[in-house]
């Protein structure tokens, strides 16, 4: 159920999540986001090697009806993108915190992660919305 918010991740108020993995940070969208979007049919990914900036748009996610922007939880260089999403964008619906990850980033300032929402704070935000 989408109400389960993994405790080991950090969140943005725009419904992206960030997972620290060694020196890198994996980024995706939350279960709440994918459910609100409905069937994901397209994910526009940034190029590997491009730079993203915390709070700024880094890509686009589209469902059958709607186009939504993806916002970077952290600044840094994109080192990997989830190419599998071009064939199976609905993986974002099926497994938003796992196989449906979107990009992997080498952060320019790892401390930025501390400024993101905890699972608890994100849960509170969802309750209010």
């Amino acid at each position, binding site marked *: 159920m989408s109400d389960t918010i993994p405790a080991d991740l950090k969140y943005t108020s725009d419904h992206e999540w960030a997972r620290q993995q060694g020196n890198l940070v994996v980024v995706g969208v939350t279960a709440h986001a994918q459910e609100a979007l*409905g*069937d994901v*049919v*397209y994910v*526009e990914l940034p190029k590997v090697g491009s730079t993203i900036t915390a709070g700024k748009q880094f890509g*686009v996610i*589209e*469902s*059958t*009806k709607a*186009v939504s922007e993806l916002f970077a939880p952290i600044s840094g260089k994109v080192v990997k993108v989830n190419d599998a999403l*071009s064939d199976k964008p*609905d993986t974002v619906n099926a497994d938003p915190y796992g196989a449906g990850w979107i990009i992997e980033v080498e952060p320019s300032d790892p401390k930025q992660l501390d400024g993101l929402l905890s699972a608890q704070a994100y849960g509170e935000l969802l309750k209010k919305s």
Partner: protein
Amino acid sequence: MARRTPLNEAHRKLGARMVDFVGWDMPVQYTSVIGEHEAVRNAVGLFDVSHMGEIEFRGPGALETANRLISNDLARCADGQAVYAGLLNEQGTFVDDVVAYRFSPEHIFICVNSSNREKDFAWMQERAYGVKPVDRSDDFAQIAVQGPKAPGLVQRLTKAELSKLGTYRFTEGEVAGVRCIISRTGYTGEDGFELYCAPNDAEKLWNALLEEGQADGVKPCGLGARDSLRTEMKYALYGNDIDDAHTALEAGLGWIVKLDKPGGFIGKEALEKQKAAGVHRKLVGFEVTGSGIPRHGYAIMKGGHVVGEVTSGTMGPSVKKPIGIGYVPAEFSTEGFTFDVDIRGRPVPAKVVKTPFWKKP
């Protein structure tokens, strides 16, 4: 406060996601747009379309009065037959697109788009020389039952002989004990019916169809699936693909325009002139061959210049491709012609294809 159909509570009980749709609180999806789309293509789906409006002409001269207001020809129809038609301005552009039902020469019933109901009624009142229109929208709920298993499902609930009811034919009868107009029409490209009933009976009918349809795999479907299904057929959506800025000929709807019908119709002269001079822009269907999904309002480009506009677009769940509809100069409208769609600042290649996009395999 958004208007509610008599099925509003039923949608909420089914866990529908509700949205504001032109002032109506309507279900956009229950579980998944793609799942509901596929249910209609492969089994059967139910749509609440009670937000549609109904305008009636009754009495001697009803046929002549209504026929003067629509572009298609009800005089060529038999009683019990319906036609798709345009309500056109004097310029040949659309006030609305409608389905007109001929019960008899003294009883004509016109189903109009919910967003245009008040406008259409006022427009008809102003121009109806003869019989005055009556807005009956509040007297009807409407449920669309669509999909290859729709005939079997509805037949099990009615004594009306549906096998004798051809496309765009209608009859009156009881379905699940509810008095209905049973119309073999729809907006999905599949076989099926649109059932008009009294608002108080709508929930009974809806529940009976859901229950009886369980074995068929029936699904309640929202506006999301309705839109992807109609887009795959290149069925026009008022406000997107057709409007008061584009003529019926530009929209490729010449087949609903009967220029030679006795008595004529509003917009005829403008369309005759346009036909003689040539139609300079056309509504085409196209496939995106690059990466991205076309959406309403995106520019169509050729050689870096804007030459047209996308009016509808989606990822077609059945065709499994990004598809779109849009206006382009007539010289760019032939099958195979290529252009770019400006997808958020990125030119993405697309090509004109034959429509409907979806055909039964």
